[in-house]
């Protein structure tokens, strides 16, 4: 017998194929494919001496200690047993082929040149998870809880609350340190909605990044052993958020939806030695923690693109109406942004807007300024005009004239926005009391 190299596919042909096969030949082949695969074989060509029950020449196929048949004959011949396009599939990863020819291939004194056969085989993944492919040792299902097939093998996993044992098949209740880090997910009592096992000490920890608030939504059915008078004496479901107890639940009344306002939640589930309640299931989701709606401190404050809701890492930008300064305490700010922090508070308090004060206008040498509006003030939009000490000086202004307004930038500017103040130039040749001659 010639072992066939462990390939995933190949051909097997009768001796001398495609020339006629020899008489008195016994050949056999052992096809082995890797574990996790089965062998699938078909005949691409089949031409053997036909005979009743394939008594003279034949091919025999065996797999899994069982015969898959004895074949001979020609396509369409009435005698013999031609395999046609039949697919031969093993259950295991082996298949045995044997070929037998007798001493002659004569028919009425004529030698018939039967060519024999060309077979093609390939390894096909064994779906170990298919119940029909139960383990050879007849132990029933390969996996106690969940079977996952992949090409060339399979692996087992367990339902939530259970842990795969070292045999990689069986599952044992293990829920003492279930960790959930996805933004949303499901957790439930072991075997939910079937009755949960006894003597459980389950701890489900949901740990999300800071700034997220976990929302727990209990699904139906919700059923934990309870007592009419005493609160949860048998089994308890406790919910804690960052060490803060949110609640202890049992009975049949679902807690509904709980917004924990925390990115860390622990769900503890303790059961006693008996009971048939179906347990609980939670769909947790998370949303970025909310911050209080920003409220301006005065009517000059502008919150840009005010949103209906602000959540973790959201931010808002504040500016002031023209002519007002952003102030944080006594400090003037060029800009202001507040970011919603992981604990649901703003990273800095709302500023306020203070009207721009231009301060006293620049003194005009040999001149004065006077306030146009009453009461005199240096705040935004106040107006002054400059005059020179006429008639001894005359005013020289820029194109913007002699009126100055307190600008949003906090400077006094003329009509053209120029800060430069006028100049008082001496007036020459104009004495108050020039010599006047009277008598002529």
């Amino acid at each position, binding site marked *: 017998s010639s072992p066939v190299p462990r390939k995933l596919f190949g051909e097997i042909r009768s001796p001398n194929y495609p020339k006629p096969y020899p008489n008195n030949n016994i050949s056999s082949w052992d096809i082995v494919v890797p574990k996790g695969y089965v062998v699938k074989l078909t005949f691409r060509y089949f031409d053997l001496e036909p005979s009743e029950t394939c008594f003279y020449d034949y091919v025999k196929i065996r797999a899994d200690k069982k015969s898959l048949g004895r074949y001979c004959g020609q396509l369409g011949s009435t005698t013999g047993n031609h395999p046609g396009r039949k697919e031969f599939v093993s259950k295991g990863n082996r298949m045995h082929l044997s070929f037998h020819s007798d001493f002659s291939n004569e028919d009425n004194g004529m030698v018939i040149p039967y060519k024999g056969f060309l077979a093609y085989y390939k390894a096909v993944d064994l779906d170990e998870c298919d119940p029909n492919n139960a383990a050879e040792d007849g132990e029933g299902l390969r996996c106690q809880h969940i079977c996952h097939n992949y090409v060339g093998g399979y692996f087992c996993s367990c339902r939530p609350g259970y842990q795969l044992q070292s045999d990689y098949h069986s599952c044992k209740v293990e829920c003492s340190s279930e960790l959930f880090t996805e933004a949303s997910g499901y957790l439930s009592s072991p075997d939910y909605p079937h009755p949960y096992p006894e003597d459980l000490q389950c701890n489900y920890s949901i740990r999300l990044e800071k700034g997220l608030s976990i929302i727990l939504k209990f699904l139906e059915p919700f059923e934990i052993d309870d007592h009419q008078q005493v609160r949860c004496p048998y089994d308890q479901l406790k919910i804690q958020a960052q060490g803060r107890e949110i609640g202890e639940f049992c009975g049949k009344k679902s807690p509904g939806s709980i917004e924990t306002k925390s990115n860390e939640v622990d769900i503890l589930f303790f059961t006693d030695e008996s009971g048939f309640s179906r347990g609980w299931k939670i769909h947790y989701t998370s949303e970025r923690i909310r911050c209080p709606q920003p409220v301006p401190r005065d009517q000059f404050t502008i919150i840009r693109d005010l949103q209906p809701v602000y959540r973790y890492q959201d931010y808002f930008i504040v500016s002031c109406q023209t002519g007002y300064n952003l102030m944080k305490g006594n400090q003037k700010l060029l800009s202001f942004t507040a970011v919603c922090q992981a604990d649901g508070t703003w990273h800095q308090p709302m500023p306020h807007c203070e009207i721009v004060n231009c301060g006293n206008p620049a003194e005009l*040498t*040999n001149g004065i300024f006077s306030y146009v509006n009453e009461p005199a003030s240096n705040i935004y939009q106040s107006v002054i005009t400059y005059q020179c*000490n006429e008639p*001894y*000086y005359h005013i020289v202004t820029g194109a913007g004239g002699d009126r100055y307004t307190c600008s949003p930038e906090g400077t006094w500017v003329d009509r053209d926005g120029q800060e430069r103040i006028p100049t008082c*130039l*001496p*007036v*020459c*040749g*104009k*004495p*108050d*009391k*020039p*010599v006047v*001659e009277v008598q002529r």
Partner: protein
Amino acid sequence: IVGGERAGKGNFPWQALTHIHGRGGGALLSDRWILTAAHTIFPKGSARNNVSLDELTKEADIYLGHTNVDELHKMGTHPVRRIFVHPDYNPNDEHNYNGDIALLELKYPVTLGPTVLPICLPDTSNTTFYMDGYMGYVSGFGVEKNFLSNHLKYVKLPAVSHEKCQEWLDTKTRDKPMVFSENMFCAGFLRQKRDTCQGDSGSVFTVLDVESGRWVATGIVSWGIGCAQGYGFYTKILNYLDWIKGIIKED
């Protein structure tokens, strides 16, 4: 000033009293320049002409804002930052007052008011003010009948044509004739006793420009032969406008 009148307060608010080598006059330009005669800084033939300008700058006393000398002294001087003497002025040539013009820059601008006001400079093209007979006023704290005046006086004098001046000057035979250049003009009378005199040097000859209604400086009291014994000679400011503006504009 000879044959003049007491000036009233505010009549000549540009008038400065200077004290450099002796008493002199000057006129305020803008609010920080004093126009005067170069020979009040470097008198002709003076042994002290080797004193440096820096030295003179420190020594120079400038008074403004009053018609009474004592009052002026009480008001204190205006310190001088820089002195500019026209390069054509030659202190060693006693017969030639060409270029007799100088500028004193005050350290601090003065605040103008009714008694302190600058005089205007003439328009560059305006020669009307130098025509024969054009009346002007000259004020000064100079000598009147051998007395230094304690009060600002002024006298009204007509400008005289260049020919008349030259004609008159030619009659004044002296060992060496005085130079009468294009940069000068003369004014006054041959017989009337009205003239400027020592101590008035540096003061300005002003005229009222009726068009603009402004008083304009056309000349600077420069030299003469005696006082009120004929014409007085003045530096023709019109010819030095570029020099003046070059210095003042530069600033």
